[in-house]
């Protein structure tokens, strides 16, 4: 067992009726790490969060946060963590300032005592401190929710889909905030359905249908992608899609704007060279590109589905 681990999930499972939402999940998050759980809606991310934050009991398996057991020691855990649920859960009819004071009071502290932790974020919403939370824009709500999750100086932060529906600029700012918080020693578990956010985490776990597909550093995952990827351009993309789809399998030919992305084994370069020679009239250009996080996720989904079907 990893001694530095701040969060440990050990064979956790949880069903809702016949639906197995979390299926024997194992992973751990090191102290001071930003760990991303990445997967689509319905993958089991929120159920996992609710178990780890002591809001839901697992059917089997065990979990701990900072060494405290998620079932027995729920009181200690609740004192020491901050949780920002995916659904905006602050009091809509309280103002920004009132919400913040309320959360500080519940945790028997004051906004003043830990102001240094939230100052960075709070300053951005301070002009609206007397506005009711329900009247804030999406980005502002997100910042207020983060302030409320931080106001009692937690040691572990759970953020369930904090960037869903948020624009690209606010997302970048949000991730920058998380990296500043990390520097204070905070451990952060964050979930997102968006593959492009993986690179902002120290490590990620891909999650799909209640199972973890892979865990690793984002760059290592991308480096381990088993196939070659080529970007192909042509003056007749439709022809190329149909022809290459017939040769390589349609699942390996994907339209990407005005380019095509083509997947294959080491022979792919030769196949493309021959193909472009045979069809000079279509001006086929091709070049090798690096696989993306999304490519890796799709490949893992496929092999996971194959296993299920066996």
């Amino acid at each position, binding site marked *: 067992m990893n001694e530095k681990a701040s969060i440990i999930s050990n064979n956790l499972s949880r069903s809702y009726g016949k639906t197995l939402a979390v299926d024997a999940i194992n992973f751990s998050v090191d102290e001071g790490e930003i760990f991303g759980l990445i*997967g*689509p*809606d*319905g*993958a089991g991310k929120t159920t996992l969060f609710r178990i780890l934050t002591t809001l839901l009991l697992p059917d089997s398996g065990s979990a701990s946060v900072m060494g405290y057991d998620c079932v027995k020691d729920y009181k200690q855990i609740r004192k020491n963590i901050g949780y920002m649920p995916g659904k905006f859960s602050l009091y809509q009819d309280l103002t920004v300032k009132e919400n913040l004071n309320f959360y500080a009071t519940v945790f028997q502290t004051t906004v003043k005592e830990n102001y240094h932790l939230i100052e960075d974020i709070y300053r951005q919403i301070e*002009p609206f401190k007397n506005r009711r939370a329900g009247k804030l*824009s*999406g*980005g502002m709500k997100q910042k207020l929710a983060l302030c409320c999750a931080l106001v009692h100086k937690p040691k572990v932060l759970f953020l369930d889909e904090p960037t*869903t*529906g*948020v*624009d*690209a*600029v*606010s*997302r*970048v700012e949000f991730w920058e905030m998380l990296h500043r918080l990390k520097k204070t020693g905070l451990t952060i578990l964050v979930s997102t*359905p*968006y*593959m*492009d956010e993986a690179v902002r985490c120290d490590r990620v776990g891909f999650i*799909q249908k209640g199972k973890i597909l892979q865990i690793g550093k984002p760059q290592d995952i991308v480096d381990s992608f088993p196939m070659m990827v080529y970007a192909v351009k042509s003056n007749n993309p*439709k022809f190329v899609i149909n022809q290459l789809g017939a040769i390589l399998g349609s699942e390996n030919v*994907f*339209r*990407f*704007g*005005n380019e095509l992305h083509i997947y294959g084994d080491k022979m792919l370069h030769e196949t493309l060279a021959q193909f472009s020679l045979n069809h000079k009239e279509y001006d086929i250009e091709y070049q090798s590109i690096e696989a993306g996080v*999304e490519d890796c*996720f*799709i490949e893992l*989904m496929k092999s996971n589905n194959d296993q299920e079907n066996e």
Partner: protein
Amino acid sequence: MNNDSIITVKHLYKQFGSFTANKDLNFEVKRGEIFGFLGANGAGKTTTMKILCGLSKPTSGEVTVAGFDVYQDTEKIKRNIGYMSQKFSLYEDLSVIENIVFYGGIYGLGYKEIMRSAKEMLTGLGIWDIRKKVIADLPLGWKQKLAFSLAMLHKPSIIFLDEPTGGVDPVTRRQFWDMIYAAAETGITIFVTTHYMDEAEYCDRVSIMVDGVIVALDSPQQLKAQYQVKTMDEVFLKLARAKTETTNQNQSAL
């Protein structure tokens, strides 16, 4: 007017009290084009979308959609467009077939015609056998593909997609974009908003709106070349962030 343009916007202004949500917008969307409409939260995208869908009138400017004027012919516009968003698409407690009959009915299609289209659509999607299941029991990916097909039931010339792919798995997202490409090839115009910049790369042209103004409009390739960056994400951040920072500075100066 260019005959190939299905949407034309000239000097569009929309004012709410003293707040200008859209400032002098000028653009055209071509028939069969996939047009990406980008901007930060609060940039004014929804205001423009509402005007283009015939739900709100401009303060001033000339706007036509599918050849119809947004001041006079809003009902005709509504019959000629389809709309789908992630937030609102299908009725969860109606079955697949009930949703289709309901939508078809709203657009004034006859029952026989609806059933014929429904069979064609559901067979194409491979879900004819589960037509009596309620929507709530379907996986998210199927819901979205169905919602997109449904938005095309009345054969509109333009489809507005408002953040259509949030939260779906990447395989479904690619299949969804295949459907978008297929629709565009039949001549349907796609007008799509998204917060996810890799999807901006999939569009023929994109516009980027900042504080009510369109600050860039071109193909993703041209925009990336112009700003000397590799991804649309970087283009967007350069444009939208520069503006936000100046605004923040102004606020703190006050």
